[in-house]
């Protein structure tokens, strides 16, 4: 989907005035990304009663004193094919793992990895490159100053392959390995293909440097993929600032929230053609983008038996694998469509759980937070993006999908980027930071509430937790939660409250077994969620019992 938002200076500060969505139009039958932008812009103009486009559909800019048109236009792009990348390196667990982490910061698809110890013959590697014609090759390996012979062997394979490709089909190459080899790489490949030399991703075994390669990957993605998107010429003519990839802009805003709250923030963005997870704290922002996970075209390739079984396990309605496959193929080719029945909505949310769970697992593996399952470090805010989550008919559904997918411990607030404007502010922020900050401070996210999870080793039904909720208005109520329960407690949006958590012996709500605490929270559209179902979530083997339980959880969250 394409989102257009209008920000303006009102009553002493910049605010969001209006936003609208329209189907993205970069593909057939329109083949022009601008059509979707014009559609959404026209909707914004109509909603707020302010002309933004000429009759021919051109942007009215700059703004007049009477409020017609706009002064600046910023955009982010997530459409278009991902960059197809081949990784060549020495060790899978060292340099290749680092290169892969960098690759997951952009819209890319790893088409293969060649390492020293793999089973591929020289001929096979060369022919693969000739056949698949990657857009980009990331060559890495070796700590700085180490022996070079092995990497030179891999370099030779690459040199041989690119020399055999026609000039128009040759990939660009990023070299991010042993700095001793920089000259050798540029002299052997530089006359044939563009070579981008960057910092070694593993200058020593214990050190990882991804900033430099991530920047170059971002640039190459923009140049090789975004600039050739149909309609981009006109879009750039509209733009005051260069269009930026949505995932990067989204991550910049998550980093802003982490800095603002001085706490770790996790974000999940499930789009049509990709899924993004961001974890930001005051020191670091981690981005993990998967272009093979999305609610649109990627569903065509999500048809392996394990994925189908997992989605079926999350479906509260009885459905066969064949019907699910039909649904996913249809959804892939008609990504703009929306669920108009409760059955299809439940099915989409089952798919969303599977995709987000795959994203979280993969990201946690890449970041070293995996031990028989994802082990996310404590965080205090979870931000949700993407239409499937933020446009759910009832926001309790979005929270349930997210907590089922992330299965984190502890307690955290949840908020949704309901208007889809976080990436847009991310694009604006580097150029106009004050405007972006003012808009963010004006409250751009929709607060959904707080999630409190507890774990312990007791039977289902045993008392787990006692919670005392005290509001500033003087209200006070108590909740007793038992293992296995999912409880929602209404707490109106913006209402400050103090929660006194008193876990039973053996129950851990994030402060240690049996340890309680009083914390300050605020209400949200969903309220307080006590998730006492345990981790990892265990779904009954029996299909009827499983569907009954899923339906109960759905109802527990407000239906």
């Amino acid at each position, binding site marked *: 989907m394409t989102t257009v938002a209008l920000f303006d200076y009102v009553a002493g500060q910049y605010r969001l005035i209006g936003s609208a969505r329209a189907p993205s139009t970069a593909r057939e039958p329109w083949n022009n990304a601008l059509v979707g932008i014009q559609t959404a812009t026209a909707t914004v103009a109509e909603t707020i009663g302010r002309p933004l486009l000429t009759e021919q559909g051109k942007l009215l800019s700059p703004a007049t004193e009477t409020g017609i048109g706009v002064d600046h236009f910023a955009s982010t792009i997530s459409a278009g094919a991902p960059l197809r990348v081949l990784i060549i390196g020495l060790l899978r667990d060292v340099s290749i793992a680092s290169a892969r982490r960098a690759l997951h910061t952009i819209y890319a698809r790893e088409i293969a990895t060649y390492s020293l110890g793999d089973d591929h013959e020289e001929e096979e590697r060369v022919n693969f490159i000739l056949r698949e014609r990657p857009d980009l090759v990331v060559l890495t390996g070796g700590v700085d100053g180490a022996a070079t012979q092995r990497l030179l062997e891999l370099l030779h394979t690459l040199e041989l392959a690119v020399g055999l490709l026609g000039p128009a089909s040759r990939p660009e190459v990023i070299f991010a390995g042993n700095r001793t080899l920089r000259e050798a790489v540029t002299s052997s490949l530089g006359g044939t293909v563009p070579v981008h030399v960057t910092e070694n991703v593993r200058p020593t075994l214990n050190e990882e440097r991804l900033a430099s390669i991530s920047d170059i990957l971002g640039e190459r993605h923009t140049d090789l993929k975004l600039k050739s998107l149909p309609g981009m010429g006109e879009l750039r003519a509209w733009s005051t600032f260069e269009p930026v990839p949505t995932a990067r802009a989204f991550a910049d805003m998550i980093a802003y929230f982490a800095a603002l709250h001085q706490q770790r923030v996790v974000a999940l963005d499930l789009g049509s053609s990709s899924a993004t997870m961001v974890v930001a704290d005051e020191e670091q922002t981690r981005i993990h983008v998967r272009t093979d996970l999305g609610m649109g075209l990627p569903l065509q390739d999500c048809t392996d038996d394990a994925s189908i079984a997992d989605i079926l396990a999350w479906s509260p309605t009885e459905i066969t694998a064949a019907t699910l496959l039909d649904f996913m193929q249809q959804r892939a080719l008609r990504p703009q469509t*929306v669920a108009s029945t409760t059955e299809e909505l439940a099915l989409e949310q089952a798919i969303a759980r599977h995709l987000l769970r795959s994203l979280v697992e993969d990201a946690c593996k890449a970041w070293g937070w995996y031990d028989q399952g994802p082990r996310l470090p404590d965080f205090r805010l979870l931000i949700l993006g993407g239409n499937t989550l933020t446009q759910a008919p009832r926001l309790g559904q979005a929270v349930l999908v997210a907590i089922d997918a992330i299965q984190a411990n502890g307690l955290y607030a949840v908020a949704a980027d309901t208007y889809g404007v976080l990436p847009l502010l991310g694009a604006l922020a580097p150029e106009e930071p004050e405007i972006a900050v003012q808009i963010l401070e004006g409250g751009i996210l929709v607060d959904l509430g707080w999630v409190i999870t507890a774990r312990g080793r007791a039977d289902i039904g045993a008392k787990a937790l006692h919670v005392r909720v005290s509001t500033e208005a003087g209200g006070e109520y108590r909740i007793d939660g038992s293992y296995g329960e999912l409880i929602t407690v209404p707490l109106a949006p913006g209402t400050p409250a103090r929660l006194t958590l008193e876990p039973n012996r053996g129950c851990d709500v994030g402060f240690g077994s049996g340890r309680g605490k009083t914390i300050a929270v605020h209400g949200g559209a969903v309220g307080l969620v006590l998730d006492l179902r345990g981790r990892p979530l265990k779904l009954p083997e029996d299909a009827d019992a499983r569907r009954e339980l899923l339906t109960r959880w759905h109802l527990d969250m407000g239906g």
Partner: protein
Amino acid sequence: MIAPSITLVKADSRIRRERILPQAGEVVAHIGQQVSPVQVVARSSRQKEYAIIPAARILGVAAEEVPEYLLVEEGAVIQREKPLLQKSSLFGNTIVRSPVNGTLYQLSQGYLVLQQTPELIELRAMVQGYVTNVLAHRGVVIETQGAVVQALWGSGREGYGTLEVVVTAGDEPLQRDHIGSEARGKILVAGQLRFPDVLEAAAEYGVRGLVVGSAPGRLLPLLAKYHFPIIVTDGFHEQAMASPLFQLLQEMKGREASIIGGAGKGRQRPEIIIPLPPAAKIESEAADSHTLKVGQTVRILRAPHTGKVGKIVNITRHPRETGSGLRLPGADVRLQSTDVVFVPYLNLDLIV
């Protein structure tokens, strides 16, 4: 301004289609030339895989010493089993033979690179019409007049043949007994593809293509394996072919038709093109506008009315609640049953 999904279903239209080689080559048609579906308009050669021989390693010599043992020159045409390298030593005679037919493309750092004889690619017009433009080294633009029906999914193959509608209703599945010797050279049209056994029969009797309203999603990888094109117009779950498409294809029964497009993701949309004699009134192929209007014919893309066709009787700017609880702007659509249903515009496919 609402930009819905659009499907072309036109009886008389001016149709322009690019025919493009997968890689640069030679265009052999010229502007103004009349072409038939079978006519080659451009050709190129596709490189088969290279054979790479680690000569230095096999001979146990340094890379720069390999030329001393080479029996053929770079660029020489070679046959399979032809000796390429020979090294004699105290321990015997080492001979390296060519594993393929082709040429010795290059000797690089101790490796012999053998280029196998390339495969000729011929790009056919596939549509009867006139060449209106030549795209240097890549292909041509062909213009024709006639009917066009766009589909949802294609197996990636292209073809042409005589259009034959083998069922009487758009929801009727293709059966094994629809396919016999009379099906040779035909593009068969049916409401649904449910039974995989019809595919083998179609292959056996020389069917040139299949056009169906729906097919099971699980069969798509299988459909892509057949050498004749298969296209799905509407969906993947026992869905009938939408009536405007079925009616138009019925009207075109017996005419020569082409199936093009549908190769892979994001490529040209699969479609059936049926060239017709020049008509007095030719419609523009392009949709008049991207905006939904009252009176337009639409197909509904999602449950509970998936695949149904109707006319827009009212467009609502203000969101209304759907069965899923989502509140969305949309349109009231009068179905052929005369019922009027509200459909979010995101779930409408404009048939033009």
